[in-house]
């Protein structure tokens, strides 16, 4: 069968809407190019134009005429009837999903708020300590400073002595990490002996310590910053090397 013969044979099927969907599309496309088939199908449609009236007319439900007129004249596109319930169902599913996600988000936010609260409390404490330190520094009646003898490193210690409180505010700056098995420490040299005041933490920035002066060994004469072994015997390190001295 020639290609056009197929269209000729199926003109009536097209005119009466009996073709499959795909065939209908092909036929419509053919009609745009074939005047003969276009005229022939138009004639068939015309001859059968009253065939739809073989049905029984159905009384329209109340208000249908008005709904149809409104639907045509209202240029806003009305939704097909299935759209609204489908949209509502989809909205419910989405809302449930959002609700679940929101609950998770709220929980995450609550945890974050707790973290922030803890951070703020911690920072408040640090701020209070800093203010206290600044107050101590401001009220200091003596300031001592020494450069630490560590090769290749610019490190120093500054001491603000507050006699009324009998304490030292010690600022350590630029102290490198201690070698393995070693640590840094500050020792008080008193009239009746020596006592370790505090271990000095290392770090790239400044570290502030508040150390109470010993009161049971007589007057403090000086202080010494040491690099010493962590291992101890009889309360004293096995080895010790002075890297800085503070003389009152």
């Amino acid at each position, binding site marked *: 069968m020639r290609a056009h013969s197929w269209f000729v044979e199926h003109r*009536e099927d097209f005119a009466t809407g009996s073709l499959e969907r795909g065939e209908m599309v092909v036929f419509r496309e053919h009609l745009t190019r074939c005047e003969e088939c276009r005229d022939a199908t138009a004639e068939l449609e015309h001859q059968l*134009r009253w065939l*739809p009236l073989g*049905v029984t007319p159905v009384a329209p439900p109340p208000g249908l005429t008005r709904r149809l007129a409104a639907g045509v*004249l209202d240029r806003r596109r009305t939704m097909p009837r299935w759209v609204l319930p489908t949209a509502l169902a989809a909205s419910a599913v989405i809302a449930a999903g959002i609700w679940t996600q929101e609950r998770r988000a709220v929980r995450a936010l609550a945890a974050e708020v707790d973290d922030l609260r803890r951070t703020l409390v911690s920072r408040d404490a640090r701020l209070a300590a800093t203010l206290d330190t600044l107050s101590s520094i401001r009220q200091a009646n003596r300031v001592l400073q020494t450069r630490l003898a560590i090769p290749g490193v610019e490190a120093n210690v500054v001491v603000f002595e507050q006699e009324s409180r009998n304490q030292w505010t010690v600022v350590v700056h630029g102290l490198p990490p201690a070698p393995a098995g070693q640590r840094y420490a500050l020792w008080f040299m008193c009239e009746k002996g020596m006592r370790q005041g505090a271990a000095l933490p290392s770090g790239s920035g400044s570290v502030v310590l508040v150390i109470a002066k010993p009161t049971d060994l007589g007057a403090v004469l000086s202080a010494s910053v040491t690099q010493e072994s962590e291992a101890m015997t009889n309360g004293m390190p096995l080895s010790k090397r002075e890297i800085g001295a503070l003389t009152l």
Partner: protein
Amino acid sequence: MYPQATTSIVTGNRLTLSAAREGDLRARLCARDQQALVELIELTTPWLLGLVHGMLQDHDESEDVLLDTFRQVWDKIDPAGPTGLLPLVFRIARNKAIDRLRRRKRRTALAARWRASAVPEELMTFPETIATPHPGWQVQTQVREALGALPEEQRAVVHLAYYQGMTHGDIAAELALPLGTVKTRLRLAYTKLRASLASLREWVA
């Protein structure tokens, strides 16, 4: 505010719509006369509902098809259209209903419905017309006379193909007939119907 429903196109018991009146309706539609749209809806809706609902078996979907049909007519009405206005409306609505049928694969459901019913008896008879004659009822009478003049086996395939929107393949499967037989019966039936309905040139009472 939309135009109110009217019966102005139907005068008394004459129930006529001559070619002149139809031409006037088309001209007013082209002039965007909203009252003409209401008249067209009133005039054709009972027939369209009967046609479309018979195919789709769904009230809501049928109303959607009618709305799409009237929108297309309103948007694309051509003052020099080649065919009559009312047949054009019927054809648009029927094509839209068929498109929906093809899309939703309703053929299966239709076949099930037909299987569940007494097929031969149902195919041989048409429901009675509504008690109050509607414009077009005399045309309906002639169409049914033409259908009634067909042999039973031809009327059955026309009913399934034209009024139920089934494809040839569906009909062959439903009636357990070879596809060629279905096509032959339809071809013979449509040839006779074309001859019978050729004289219906106007919609007049």
